[in-house]
């Protein structure tokens, strides 16, 4: 599966309650097939896929194509595996935070995966943007201190590689409109609060599955480019 002929190895991780469709969604993404059977994930698993990523020039012109090897971590939603699965959060550069559009409860639990303190989070998000553009030392310190306090509340924030990892919010099972319990406006508002993209997907039809993964990949690749800009390429070799 993994010959070394690629430019980047990128690791993503899907999380969310049991039954929302994480395994089925990833299976659709990697194999373009749908599995209607529910076989709950035991602890942890991962799938792999090779994709081509196109960078964009500053003027919007298409730049260079990179080969990316994706490692897609699939976590168990069941509570009893929680301490095991959160240990793997640090191994991912981006997160697919998933809920089931036909289950209000799975949507409410998204907040637990993020952080309880929405207000501070919104503030944080705008600071993070400032920090990245201006590199202001005071703001960085302030932001780190505050974040330290609230990060214990959020599973994701506490266990990921940094406090503001790239996340995409996903409402899955969009092919079941009759059973829908979460409306789109509600979900969009939450995503906006967190400052993350939102997609309604269906592992059954394939709707938005590729697009949502690609959006996350794009966020990560942009972050990677930014991090390289800050340091000279030549001082590494």
């Amino acid at each position, binding site marked *: 599966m993994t010959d070394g002929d690629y430019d980047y190895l990128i690791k993503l991780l899907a999380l969310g309650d049991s039954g929302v469709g994480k395994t089925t969604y990833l299976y659709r993404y990697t194999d373009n097939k749908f599995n209607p059977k529910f076989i709950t994930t035991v602890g942890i698993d991962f799938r792999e896929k090779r994709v081509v990523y196109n960078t964009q*020039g500053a003027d919007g012109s298409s730049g260079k194509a990179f080969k990316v090897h994706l490692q897609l971590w699939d976590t168990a939603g069941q509570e009893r595996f929680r301490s095991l699965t959160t*240990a793997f959060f640090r191994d991912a550069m981006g997160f697919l935070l998933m809920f089931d559009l036909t289950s209000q409860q799975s949507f409410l639990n998204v907040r637990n995966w993020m952080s309880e303190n929405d207000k501070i989070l919104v503030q944080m998000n705008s600071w993070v943007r400032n920090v990245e553009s201006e590199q202001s030392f005071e703001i960085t310190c302030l932001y780190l201190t505050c974040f330290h306090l609230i990060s214990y509340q959020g599973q994701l924030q506490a266990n990921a590689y940094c406090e503001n990892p790239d996340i995409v919010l996903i409402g899955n099972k969009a092919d079941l409109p009759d059973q829908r319990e979460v409306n789109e406006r509600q979900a969009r508002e939450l995503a906006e609060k967190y400052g993350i993209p939102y997609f309604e997907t269906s592992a059954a039809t394939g709707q938005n599955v590729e697009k949502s993964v690609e959006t996350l990949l794009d966020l990560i690749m942009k972050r990677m480019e930014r991090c390289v*800009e800050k340091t000279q390429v030549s001082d590494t070799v």
Partner: protein
Amino acid sequence: MGKKLDLSKLTDEEAKHVWAVVQRDFDLRRKEEERLEELKGKIQKESSKRELLSDTAHLNETHCARCLQPYRILVNSRRQCLECSLFVCKNCSHVHPEEQGWLCDPCHLARVVKIGSLEWYYQHVRARFKRFGSAKVIRSLSGRLQGGGGSEPS
């Protein structure tokens, strides 16, 4: 955040499954390390070639710094690398992803390695946690599943 992971509640079957998954992860990690080492080796080779070239700077006016072929107008014209300022031919250059301009092959490769080795990411992980998830799980399971093969890589 150095809590010890307690996996004693997993059944034997579950523990075996988890063990197999983290072994697969180790394989992938090992291959990735090898790949990056190989790329770094390539860059090393290129840079010694460049040292040679810098003694004869005028050569670069007429010949590509990488393939050492003379430039040919229209067919294989000359362009300057934004990173190292040397001139290279069209075949030996890449579009710079952000700025308008070009990167020579070696500088492009260096950039790929720099981005691909994900120093920024691993720095964060190291700062926050002692070991990565798979290693943590192996540690907690290894007493229980003897002979599963493979040990924690450094």
